[in-house]
């Protein structure tokens, strides 16, 4: 279906006067450096659901706990402005699995393409970081993210967008920056079983390949995030289908691909087209009224 659409836009482009010929191979913003950037690998077969990652995240980032209506805490049901990573349980008929969800730190992130003011940026080190001083609070990033990761501080008067920073402190809050002092993200360093590990994306990809090769019968034969949605910096190995973990089914093309192809050409195309139409109409109708 997605292939059909892509062929279709090319057809439509030709129909629009051949002006919408799409440039091929737009470079993903992460480019070839993605393998050297930091990443995480989560393996469902090793996860015991202890939520140490979830707590470590809250501790390090000083995010408030979210008590239930009786005042008991802390068991948030979903990601929120205060919960940047969460452990969930998939309980199927004859299979079960824990799932850890949070920002995927995509190589070519939809939130970054959507943001009108570059408040969200993909750093060359890998993390996708947020700058509240630029943000206008339009929430386009929240709609654009296929993982529904960015959340909003709804209860604030001037809310910020809030999500996992890969423990970079968004490159602004030095106190919360673990990466620059050689530490890994709090969640990965807290994991007692090695279900969540961190390293460069290249290292983790070969580690994931190794696990897949050595225990082929244990895993679904796929590294989620290697190519899904154009590739992500958080990778998943799973013994249950990935959609059961709450991960969307995405093609290998980056989510913002079509957007990024249209962005540089649609403006000049319409502008030149518009000038031609207006000038043409003006010339032709002017000629007609002169004849009369």
């Amino acid at each position, binding site marked *: 279906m997605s292939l059909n659409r892509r062929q279709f836009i090319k057809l439509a482009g030709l129909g629009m006067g051949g002006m919408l010929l799409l440039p091929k191979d737009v470079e993903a913003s992460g480019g070839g450096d993605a393998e050297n950037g930091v990443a995480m690998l989560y393996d469902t077969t090793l996860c015991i659901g202890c939520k140490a990652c979830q707590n470590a995240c809250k501790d390090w980032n000083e995010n408030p706990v979210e008590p239930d209506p009786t005042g008991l805490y802390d068991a948030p049901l979903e990601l*929120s402005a205060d919960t940047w990573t969460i452990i969930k349980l998939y309980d199927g008929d004859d299979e079960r699995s824990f799932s850890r969800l949070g920002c995927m730190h995509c190589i070519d992130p939809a939130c970054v393409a959507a943001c009108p*003011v570059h408040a969200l940026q993909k750093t060359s080190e890998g993390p996708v970081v947020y700058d509240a001083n630029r943000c*206008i609070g*339009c929430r386009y990033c929240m709609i*654009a993210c296929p993982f529904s990761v960015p959340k909003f501080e709804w209860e604030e008067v001037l809310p910020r967008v809030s999500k996992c920073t890969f423990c970079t402190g968004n490159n602004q809050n030095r106190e919360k920056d673990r990466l620059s002092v050689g530490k890994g993200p709090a969640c990965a360093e807290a994991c007692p079983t090695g279900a969540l590990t961190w390293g460069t994306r290249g290292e983790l990809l070969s580690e994931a390949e190794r696990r897949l090769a050595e225990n082929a019968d244990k895993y679904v034969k796929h590294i989620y995030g290697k190519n899904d949605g154009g590739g992500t910096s958080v990778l998943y190995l799973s013994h249950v289908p990935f959609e059961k973990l709450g991960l969307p089914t995405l093609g290998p093309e980056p989510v913002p691909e079509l957007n990024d192809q249209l962005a540089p050409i*649609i*403006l000049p195309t319409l502008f030149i087209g518009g000038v031609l139409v207006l000038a043409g109409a003006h010339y*032709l109708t002017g000629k007609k009224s002169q004849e009369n």
Partner: protein
Amino acid sequence: MTTMTKEKRGIPLSFYVLGLLTVIGVGLGIYRLAVGLDSTTNLSDHYPWGLWIALDVFLIPAAGSAFTVSAISHFFGREDYHKILRPAVLTGFLGYMAVVAILILDLGRWHQFYSILLPNRINLHSFLEEVALSVTLYTMVLILELAPTFLEKWNLDLPIRFIESGIMIIAGVGVLISTVHQSSIGSMFVILEHRLHPLWWTPIIPLLFLTQALFGGLAAAAVVIKLTRERLGLPLDRKLLSSIGKVIRILLAFYLICKVGDLLLTGELGLLFTSGSYSLLVWLELALGVILPLAILFSKLGKRADGVFWAGVWIIIGLFFNRVTIGWIGLEAPAWATYVPHWIEVMSSIGIAAGAILVYMIVTRLFDLFPEHTH
């Protein structure tokens, strides 16, 4: 808007009603900016966008009256369209003012609104940025186009002559910016393939949005001009209205072909019957907003001012359905999540709309929207 048959010297009741609604809306708007979104809206992480965005996405093409009439009268050699240029441009301008007002209410960090204008911040790959920049620029163009209406009241001939000497350039820039951003609003949804229901998501959404703005803008012009002239007790130019109707019907037919053709080519025609309430929505939108006005405009009714007026009304209603679906209802949210607009979202929107209508009515009374001497 209601038409009043008898025009009295005093201030009619409708002014008071609209004024009251405006005051309530402005008050609620200020309250919302002061206290945040949590207690004044029902927006949430599941529904980051709601009524306000939907209304903006609807109002921009409806305010297309300015650029469509401007293009036809200035560049397509239709002198007769000059007569309706002022009300069409005023409608467009007030529409954009309403859009900006609603957008500011919607922005969580409205205090940093200026970010969209700072060259070191803006992201030109974001179609939202393209829309924001265009709306800002275009508003300035509209102010220039509108200025003579006000300046002539005080006989300020010099600035009027200055604007009129450059009117082709001003109007041309306005038409071009409009063409670009009307399509860019559609392009904003290109990146939302995973969110927007496939009945509405298509790679040709920029083309669909531009076409809608062309017929939607002309429809709005036809509706507004009929109402205004009736109110002022001026005769209707039947020939002009039916000529607008003829342009509209070509655009409507083109839109219908693109819309159905897109579903056909992508093999999604079945969705028209299998998507439950979404199927119903798309049928409503196409039946009321496209097919019904097409039928009116291709029948004998299309030659009558009433026919074009009602076709215009149905087009606006259909456009409303379409844009509310794309900006809100058709965007996927978890099945358990709900969103019904908060009464403050509703009343502030009504207040802003009432304010725009009120200003239009006041300008109609105090200034000359239908000058006879235009050449």
